[in-house]
């Protein structure tokens, strides 16, 4: 797998069609709360990850976490630990595990699972208050998770 990706990058064959086999939410493999395998095989984009973390309509991670690097985003919450240094404390697999489903590493955590589609009580259709319908999907797409993980990895201090 890794070899093919490197070859693909090297030969400029970088396109989603090549890596159609995304890991679906129900098939993510955890080892001690960490997820080793990339969900897409495509390297995450830290710049996009940065905007997902700060955007109310996307990850909205700042609802609960403060991030010094995102000082331009107002009203950062204080429910979870500061994310400064997260990329120093945790390796990539651990960060992926935390974003996919933090409860696998932190038992009973308040942090929502961002790449999970089953096992909810009364899941709704986004913030409408109505029941979920067939459009129900994970909070972030596989590539968005990779982007967020790539961004978190840059927060080394």
């Amino acid at each position, binding site marked *: 797998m890794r070899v093919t990706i490197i070859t693909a990058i090297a030969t400029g064959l970088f396109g989603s069609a090549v890596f159609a086999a995304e890991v679906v939410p129900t098939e993510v493999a955890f080892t001690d709360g960490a997820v080793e395998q990339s969900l897409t095989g495509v390297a995450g984009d830290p710049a996009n990850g940065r905007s997902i973390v700060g955007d109310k309509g996307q990850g909205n991670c700042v609802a609960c976490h403060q991030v010094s690097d995102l000082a331009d985003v107002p009203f950062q919450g204080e429910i979870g630990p500061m994310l400064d240094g997260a990329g120093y404390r945790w390796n990539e697999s651990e960060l992926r595990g935390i974003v996919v489903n933090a409860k696998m590493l932190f038992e009973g955590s308040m942090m929502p699972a961002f790449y999970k589609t089953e096992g909810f009580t*009364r899941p709704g259709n986004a913030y409408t*208050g109505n029941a979920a319908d067939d459009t129900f999907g994970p909070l972030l797409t596989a590539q968005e998770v990779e982007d967020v993980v790539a961004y978190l990895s840059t927060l080394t201090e």
Partner: protein
Amino acid sequence: MMRLTGALLAVLLTAPMASADPVDDTLILNGETEMVTRTAAPDHVSDAMDEVLSGWHFRGTETRAMQEDDFDNPGMIFVEKAEDTWNAVEGSEDKSCASCHGASDQMAGVRPTYPKWNEEAGEVRTLEMQVNDCRKNRMGAEEWKYTGADMVNMTALLASVSRGLPMDVAIDGPAQSTWEQGKELYYTRFGQLELSCANCHEDNYGNMIRADHLSQGQINGFPVYRLKNTKLNAAHDRFKGCIRDTRAETFKPGSEEFIALELYVASRGNGLSVEGPAVRN
């Protein structure tokens, strides 16, 4: 990498800073009635917290001040409207609320005990249910919509005449199973975000969640006048909003689930003064 411009920095520095703790202040209503806004937790929640606090402690200086004086409290306009309704004859029996109950302040002491078990009906009743029972069976009038303006105004009037009295709902005897059901709901992690009432209001009160300063989610101040929508808001509407915010399918105001949840949440505030209509952002 840092995209902070000077102008932006200035804005950030002057923006109100998140304060983690509830404000240390005393609520004295109209310069005379001292309200109990923080007190020892009732026995049935003492395993979870030592002290119970009114949502008033978690609001800003101006919002707190508005609640201190009836002339500044916009919720009192709706109380006045309800006072007219209280005295208005309606329905096939040619009666008003006043025909049976006298002046509205005769109802002091009622709000703090609701929701409560009604022996004849064999059910736990909220104040709204009791109001509609009177309208239907004693006045021969139309029932009001559960969280409609008429109803929420009337519950504000009934709360206002009990201000300063301690919340005191009974949780034992025939109400106990409903209370247990409410407790179960309080700790259920609903929706795609898998959050329970306790996650926000028991484990994190005092903390900021995005721009909101989390309170204990007490209902001793309901119905509350919200600056955000400039009207009175019923407790069940607040429950609905909070559950919706977990990306869940909510329950309906007046549903069995919300009646049970109301009894449970009210019991967590036993000992706090009735404050309705409180003022919130």
